[in-house]
């Protein structure tokens, strides 16, 4: 305690000790972010370096008035909402299984986590080959990866298959916190297992659920690798990250590309803000609240 307040000399020493870490963070985190912001306000194309000029919010106007951005935004939002929802449902089921397992608990939990341990690109390639016409074992004579909605369905499937275990793990952590005596008491009062789940387990788990949804939604919004491998954004399946990659890395347009990156960060910040608002208003330490009632 007293060390935290400390004397002037100690305080200086503390600052000095922190300085290298702070400087490191400034270089690797703050600089790129500020540079991206700076670039997003400029016309900056790598192939025309002498035409770089300040254009205010011109790039933002270009992006936000482009149907390409809004199409990609729609696809990204759709994939985010649908896959997070499916993962929540399946993840909860998986978490319950992992929680209730009596025999070989460690083995069950490990096996359930295998999809999450796989490299996304590898998983996506195996799905792509599986749905290649004639040669893929799931495709037969069809070619689902050449149509918009069937492609999006496969992209969602790839996401869900891959990250449901992660969701389940986060939910399991919440599940463990539900006090057994409360469940027993409810059982004594004649509550069915569904009622116990709906009325006791779910409300008590709410903070864990919201954290899990927050993590996954942020992650899903940045989706890139699955789409890159499965369709490379063809047939109207591009996500915002794919569009950013095409403009920044492939098109070498630093200005537009940085603008896209900034907009993606803003969108993610918005998602995080909305979900965390939900989290704060609904989670005043749920177990204690229940006991006081």
């Amino acid at each position, binding site marked *: 305690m007293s060390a935290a307040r400390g004397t002037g000399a100690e305080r200086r020493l503390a600052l000095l000790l922190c300085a290298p870490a702070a400087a490191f963070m400034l270089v690797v985190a703050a600089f790129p972010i500020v540079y991206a912001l700076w670039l997003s306000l400029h016309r900056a194309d790598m192939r025309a370096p002498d035409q770089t000029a300040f254009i205010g919010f011109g790039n933002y106007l270009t992006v936000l008035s*482009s149907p390409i951005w809004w199409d990609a935004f729609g696809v990204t939002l759709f994939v985010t909402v649908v896959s997070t929802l499916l993962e929540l449902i399946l993840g909860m089921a998986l978490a319950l299984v992992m929680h209730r397992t009596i025999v070989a608990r460690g083995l069950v939990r490990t096996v359930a986590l295998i999809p999450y341990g796989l490299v996304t690109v590898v998983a996506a390639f195996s799905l792509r080959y599986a749905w290649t*016409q004639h040669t893929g074992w799931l495709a037969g004579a069809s070619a689902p990866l050449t149509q918009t909605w069937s492609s999006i369905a496969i992209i969602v499937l790839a996401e869900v298959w891959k990250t449901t275990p992660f969701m389940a793990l986060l939910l399991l952590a919440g599940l463990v916190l539900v006090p057994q005596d409360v469940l027993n008491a409810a059982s004594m009062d004649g509550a069915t297992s569904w009622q116990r789940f709906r009325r006791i387990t779910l409300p008590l788990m709410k903070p864990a659920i919201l954290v899990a949804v927050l993590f996954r939604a942020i992650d899903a919004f940045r989706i890139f690798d699955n789409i890159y491998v499965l369709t490379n954004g063809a047939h109207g399946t591009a996500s915002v990250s794919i569009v950013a990659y095409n403009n920044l890395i*492939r098109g*070498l347009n630093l200005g537009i590309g940085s603008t896209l990156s900034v907009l993606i960060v803003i969108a993610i910040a918005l998602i995080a803000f909305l979900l965390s608002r939900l989290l704060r208003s609904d989670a005043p330490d749920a177990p204690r609240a229940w006991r006081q009632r």
Partner: protein
Amino acid sequence: MKRRPCVSVLVLLGSWLATITACAPVPDGIVLGLYKYQENYFDEVLARCNAEAAGRYTIEQHILPRDADGQREQLVRRLAARDQTMDIVGLDVTWIAEFAEAGWILPWTGADSMAAVEDMLPGPLATMTWQDTVFAVAANTNVQLLWYRTDLVPEPPQTWDEMLVMADSLAAAGKPHVIAFTGAQYEGLVVGFNTLLESYGGSLLSEDGTESAVDERTVQALALLQRFATSAGASPAVGNAHEAEAQAQMENGYAAFQLNWPYVWAAMQVNNPAMMDVFAFTHYPAVVPGRPARVTTGGLDYAVGAYSRYPELAREAILCLRSRENQKFMTLNAGTPPTFRSLYDDPELQAAYPMLDVIQDQLEHAVPRPRTPFYQNVSTVVSHVLSPLRQIEPEATARELDERIQDALESRGLLP
């Protein structure tokens, strides 16, 4: 032997710090860095040129990814960072204008440029210059041919029209009938469309490469593409077919026709030798009867990196890497078509490489892809506007193409 200094430090995410070191032992003296993708048998060419240099320099290859986008990304990033080790860069023929305009590759002048263009066929030669200056030297060239199965198609089609009709009747007879075509949303689709368009006499860009040249011939080419996409000849998977998928359709017996690069000949020998008896090739089908198709050239060019410390030696090394003997060696072993006119008369090559005559014929009428520093943008929007092929509406799609190409040329708007 000495060790090269370990240089590149990579900081990732601020969470971990990895030092990637390139500390392979290298011989003393000048080392010329060569950045290109790995070709089979190329190591031997490299060894020969290093032997020829007799210790004045050693060429050391840095292997780039196989796909063109991956290569370009690495080249551009290094060149934008003024990498001094980039003495020789292997460029896809579509990048010359972009790299020259950005000042990333050095021009060739005087005796060097005379040596570079000597005996070149017009197809590859057209890829070597930008603004009437030689910026790159062709190492190999490429054109697509029509591949077909003699058991299904006794007499190969001369025109697209004939081919579509043949595919229809094969389908009606319940036989393999697919026309394997690189219809995925990527560069291969642009190559296919450019061939159709140029064969109609049209062009994507104006002569000077600054404006879109969409006209009624573009509409014709779009109409043909749309007709193909909705015909029996188009497989449902055409919208996902790259070169490899197109060739797989042939190898697996689903395709009766294939429009693809000559590498498929060697691939078929390895993957499905039983089909070699019926696997044949001929000229790319015409779109206008009696007028040979004008096919799009591909291939690899070498250029000297702008930040090289040894540009003179780099030029010398390039002339060796693509010398007549080395091109011949690569044609014989790796199957890449040569760029020297005289090699097409070489009896040894003609015996070993059956496609040679057809390729030379096509190279006489071959066309480069649109020449502009913004080619990558143009290519990206063209393949996007054309996809999916089935939904092309010739008139409307042509108008959209016109607008989007113009935007791409002015680096305006968003790339899809």
